[in-house]
């Protein structure tokens, strides 16, 4: 009797432990099985893929013969469509993506002056975005054609008064208003704030 009693405690512990492990294993496997429901796409998405697959299989049968000489690969020359002149004046059309991290863009002004484009982007320095005294900033880009033909310079407002927005441009004098209401004037000829 005493032998059984002393053995009973570890046996009970063993059985309890095994039972707990069994439960955890069953629950765990159930969750793994449940997670496999991600292998099924929603029906409408699957339908799009199925339609694509059917039409592509058909296209393979109808694919045009290729000339296997690279020098003879014919370039399709479509009728050239008329291009559109760029927007001029003040607008907030998209800024260069590469400025996104350092600069929160407000707006811009662009005009062609003496045969080259001048583009002014105005906004706030990203690093100051969450502080109470934000640094206003303008970028001035000049050039013609591809981006590689443009130069770009960055200028800070003389005082920190928040981000700046272009409100007027006359005789290459850019008037900007800061978040705090202060007005700045940037002279494009001398590339300085007045």
């Amino acid at each position, binding site marked *: 009797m005493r032998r059984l009693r002393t053995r009973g405690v570890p046996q009970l512990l063993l059985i309890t432990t095994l039972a707990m492990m069994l439960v955890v294993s069953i629950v765990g496997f159930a969750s793994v099985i449940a997670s496999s429901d991600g292998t099924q796409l929603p029906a409408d*998405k699957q339908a799009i893929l199925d339609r694509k697959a059917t039409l592509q299989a058909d296209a393979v049968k109808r694919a045009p013969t290729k000339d296997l000489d690279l020098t003879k690969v014919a370039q399709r020359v479509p009728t*050239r469509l008329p291009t559109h002149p760029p927007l001029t004046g003040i607008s907030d*059309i*998209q800024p260069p993506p*590469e400025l996104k*991290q350092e600069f929160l863009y407000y707006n811009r002004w662009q005009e062609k002056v003496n045969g080259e484009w001048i583009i002014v982007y105005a906004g706030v320095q990203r690093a100051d975005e969450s502080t109470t005294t934000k640094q206003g900033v303008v970028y001035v880009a000049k050039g013609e054609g591809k981006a590689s033909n443009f130069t770009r310079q960055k200028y800070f407002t003389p005082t920190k008064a928040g981000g700046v927005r272009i409100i007027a441009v006359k005789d290459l004098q850019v008037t900007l208003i800061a978040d705090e209401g202060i007005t700045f004037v940037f002279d494009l000829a001398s590339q300085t704030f007045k």
Partner: protein
Amino acid sequence: MIFSRVHWNKLMFRGISINFMLVLILLTTFVITIFPLNTAYAAPAPPRYTYSFYMEAADPDVLFQMGCNQGTVDRATGVNQDELVILDFGQPALDVGTYGTYIFSPTNDFTSVSEIEQGVEAFASGFYGCTLENHSHVTIIVGTNNLKGNFGQVNFAHGDEWLQLSTRVWSWLSNTGYLAQVDVDAGSDMELGYATPAATRSWVTGFTSSAVGTTRLFNYGDAAGCPTTTIGNCTTTLFSGGTVTWTPDDIWFISWGANSAWPFPEIYAANSSQAKQWHYLSLNSARNHPSRGRMNFIAVLTQNGACSRPGANCSGPPRLDNSPGTGWSQLYDEVNNDPATAIVSTYQAFKYSSDIRYQYQ
């Protein structure tokens, strides 16, 4: 019966090995159940990546050459490739009654949907012709974004127009037979700071309103301001001023909830924050939209190439110049280390990787 004292004693007496084996089996099962992911979801090597492009012109001659370059590169690999390429044409726009975009040229010239259509078809022609005997397959994603401001046409009508554009290119590919090697889908760089959820949802609704049924819409945008440790609202600075808050369901709708929407997340951040955000957005879908389930990420976008452009600043913090392999692995690990979001065996899961740069870089 097995637990009766008599039988137990007999078992104990006859062979400890029976108990030992029972314990061993349970222990093994237990360990496998508790730690399955470390073995089952070991990340494989990232896939080969393509270049995607911020388009600075829609000139068909230039796009033909770009497609030809891609086909030539694929052919040089000696095997048939399968890949995605985004041609991002920029901000949705309207000019004198014509829909189009402001592209990424320095002066952001307006480019009509007809010009874009012609350019994409030229890319397809170049790819098809220059692969020669190789039968690689490319999916071109005709991209725009959701930048609104005072000029961006982030609305139902432009979304519908973008669908019609993609569908016309699809029909052209089908008619020419190029569809054998070239597929076309649509996409948008839907950034949470570019427009309100309402405007962006309206654009997506416009895109999905017609039951055309062969065009997917990839959201290759960000999740700025979303939590990295839980499911929650995302608050970020709005392009036109102030802040904007998106709910997880707003992002779910534009990325997975709408019928043709697929997520193609930007995973730029070196600290994995964007991968964590998208993991929780997928978890939201799995938990709160069971009919849709977890998001199926078939592709990951990085911007290492764009960061190398002179004047670019991706230095952070956090750094935003993940290599394609790093970005892909970050999302793969975050998503697949959670059984509720794991998609190892779903349709084309993590099949593609692309790195965006400028067309004239």
